[in-house]
């Protein structure tokens, strides 16, 4: 089978001895027209893979930063089908950068798993990370729909995940694994790099999949530190906070957000 975009991305980075820089933004924040130009600008600034948030009214695992981003996107009624359309537009110019949808299950329930997976694959999406869908609940219909359409399912691992369960989650996931570096919601406390390194040693006993680390990466310094122990650095709240500060100057969002991406890239590659 032809290697998919996510696997190809991590393979290429591995050959170069580099780590993936994975920015997260909420689709439609602060307005639908901003998202696609922002995605291109982040890629130009050194992003390797984009996690694109599906707006949801009740993002329980997220902090106030992402909750407010969802509220801004929902003011313009950004639906899941609109998010899919944004990725389709993005693909007109960029066929290489993987795009992973991140969000909550309920909007997907409304489309139906099979319809979602078919439409997502057709739009050029590569995988999905559904925060409130652990492997136990994904087993069966959701997994089958994703696999049948060549989409990866990315799962979370947490500091509280016990070793026996790490193995189970590693076996269920594909594409990469997302290690949540702190107990808490997005945008909360700073991470402890040594604790992350210790946990990733355990994770790597059970998988050859790349492991990205997110939550608590706030600046160039923490991005650099995480890149020394992980395969990917996931950064969200810092970028979304910048977007929030530019709601009145939306034309500046792609340049100013990608400037942060470039700064992180430089630090990681140094």
């Amino acid at each position, binding site marked *: 089978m032809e290697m998919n975009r996510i696997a190809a991305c991590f393979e290429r980075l591995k050959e170069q001895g580099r780590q993936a820089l994975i920015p997260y933004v909420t689709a439609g924040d602060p307005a639908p027209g901003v998202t696609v130009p922002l995605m291109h600008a982040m890629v130009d600034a050194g992003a390797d893979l984009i996690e694109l948030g599906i707006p949801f009214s*009740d993002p329980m695992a997220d902090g106030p930063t992402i909750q407010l981003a969802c509220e801004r996107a929902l003011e313009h009624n950004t639906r899941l089908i609109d998010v899919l359309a944004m990725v389709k537009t993005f693909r007109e110019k960029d066929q290489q950068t993987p795009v992973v949808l991140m969000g909550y299950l309920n909007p997907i329930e*409304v*489309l139906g798993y099979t319809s979602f997976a078919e439409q997502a694959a057709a739009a050029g999406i590569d995988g999905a990370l559904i925060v409130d*869908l652990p492997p136990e609940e994904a087993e069966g219909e959701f997994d089958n729909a994703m696999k049948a359409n060549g989409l990866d399912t990315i799962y*979370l691992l*947490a500091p*509280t995940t016990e070793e026996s369960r790490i193995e189970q989650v590693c076996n269920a996931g594909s594409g990469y694994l997302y290690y949540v570096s702190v107990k808490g919601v997005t945008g909360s406390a700073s991470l402890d790099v040594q604790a992350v390194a210790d946990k990733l040693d355990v994770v790597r006993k059970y998988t050859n999949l790349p492991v990205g680390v997110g939550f608590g990466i706030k600046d160039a310094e923490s991005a650099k530190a995480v890149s020394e122990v992980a395969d990917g650095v996931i950064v969200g709240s810092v970028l979304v906070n910048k977007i929030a500060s530019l709601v009145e100057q939306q034309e500046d969002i792609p340049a100013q957000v990608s400037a942060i991406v470039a700064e992180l890239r430089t630090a990681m590659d140094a």
Partner: protein
Amino acid sequence: MPNKADLSAIAQMPDERGHFGPYGGRFVSETLMAALKQLEETYERLWRDPDFQAEFDHDLAHYVGRPSPLYHATHLTKLCGGAQIYLKREDLNHTGAHKVNNTIGQALLAKYTGKPRVIAETGAGQHGVASATVAARLGLECQVYMGAEDVQRQALNVYRMKLLGAEVISVESGTRTLKDAMNEAMRDWVTNVDDTFYIIGTAAGPHPYPKLVRDFQSVIGREARAQCLEQAGRLPDALVACVGGGSNAIGLFHPFIEDGDVRMVGVEAGGYGVETGQHAAPLTAGRPGVLHGNRTYLMEDDAGQIIGTHSVSAGLDYPGVGPEHSYLKDTGRAEYVAINDDEAMDAFRTLTRVEGIMPAIESSHAVAHAMKMAKEMDEDQIIVVNLSGRGDKDIHTVAQLDGIKV
């Protein structure tokens, strides 16, 4: 109506993964999975432990004041002219509602697992008060999340919680009601999972909460069943209870599931009327989806966003419902209807005037529907209504509707 074998299977739910047919489950982020698994193991062990059971029963008897009476409301019955109406007096419990049955149980779980801090979400404030009460008694730190709108309309309960030593955190996000309080409580739990026990107030949320809340609340139905047999010499023809998240209803219904001749009627909040869209009646007018850790009927828009609810009663103002109710609806074992704000307020006034019992506005929804049902039934038939809470907390709301400042 399902046959006898089906009824037995329905009563055995949930399965080992917390599913009630297609409903329930454990739809949470990874950080909480270990805590939920630990809670499940602890609960399954302790629920079968005679020492735990004895302590729970002792607290219900001597601290809560159980059994609560089953009261034959002869004046209300006469007024309606039909079936005999009996009230299960959960309003007489310590703290004034059924909520304390569950918080006693969960606080014991917190004690047995050694967690020094408890958190809770609350709508009307009854669950918050019941949580603050048991926390005070066991010396646990307690923080209660409450939507900013509910903080306004339930000021009395907010103050009660503060007097009990709890900190009330006003939630400004989203619709500023119960669902947002639950989001914030989940966020707190994710952050402080090592030392914190989350006392969920209704029979919803991720497995094992719907099951354990039901088990703690089932004392209502067990007592009512025995009391009805003793007083009337037979089982009731119908049970009626209000449904927000649905803990008082499932507590009354569950011990009767295999009594196929007993109708079970859950009463949702019809708000300004189901046809207006301004209500809190997911079983009546919603559809299945996933929120707050379980699959269940929800109020959502075409794109799967949770929509705002309206009810005069803060305790019913929630866009979801416990997963077991979704299952009882689909299997046909229980039926669900909606009662509007106005009908509930009329029932509040009627019960107050003819029986001298002032019901919570939540419970008034059940009273209103029971009054309708009674008129259509014979005098030798029996309806048991769960009077889940007392109305003292609602005096401000009632006075405001009357244009009176108290």
